[in-house]
């Protein structure tokens, strides 16, 4: 296959699940919210969730509008549900898990007024975002 053929070749990426998947995503969403509150990173979680939602809307919306995306029912509603429950909660859980493992340091994004964690002291977010 040459490059031109590859670039124009059709690739189908599909997912076959059951409706219980939507319930599971809702439970994961609730778990992410609870973790964000318990770990005192609810504002960081809200903002990265918004970032994931934005990406989901723009990217999935473009796929849907171009006809490349097929959902099970009520395309726009399902797209919104996916944008809300797929990207954000997983990202929040990933970030908090990575923090727990010590892979990333997000102490400067801890909720204002929250007590310092047992992690090494780091500087808080200061005006200008300077560290």
């Amino acid at each position: 296959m040459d490059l031109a053929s590859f670039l124009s070749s059709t690739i189908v990426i599909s997912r076959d699940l059951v409706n219980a998947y939507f319930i599971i995503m809702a439970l994961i969403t609730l778990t992410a919210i609870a973790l964000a509150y318990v770990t005192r990173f609810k504002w960081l979680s809200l903002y990265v969730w918004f970032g994931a939602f934005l990406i989901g809307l723009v990217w999935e919306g473009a796929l849907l509008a171009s006809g490349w995306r097929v959902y099970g029912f009520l395309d726009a509603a399902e797209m919104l549900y996916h944008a809300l429950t797929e990207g954000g909660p997983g990202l929040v859980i990933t970030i908090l898990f990575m923090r727990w493992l010590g892979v990333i340091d997000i102490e400067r994004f801890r909720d204002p007024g929250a007590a310092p964690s047992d992690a090494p002291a780091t500087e808080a977010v200061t005006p200008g975002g300077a560290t």
Partner: protein
Amino acid sequence: MGLLEWLLEPVHVSRTVTGGYLVLATCISLAVLAYALRTRDRNAVRLYIASIPIWMFIEGLGLVMGWRAYTEPVWLTYIVVAVMEDPGWVALAYIIGTRLMERRSLSTPATLM
């Protein structure tokens, strides 16, 4: 239809793309990684790298269990989705969220709850 029947009702989601889409997704993800490296956003870079095994597992599990299906080229699609696309979105969403949060800190730190 009862609740159990509804819960077990199959739902199919798919996207039909081209090889060019895989190239585009790869370029976007590499641009996100390059931006994170250039701005020395250590967390974003580490999230990108740490997401790779996570998404390789999730996508791989889906392929093995039959929940996920790709048409040929399967391995290339798997590599692009698990190593490039999804980690790229993770890093990009983190960058967007933290940049917005830092902007809020600039203007109205007192209003953050």
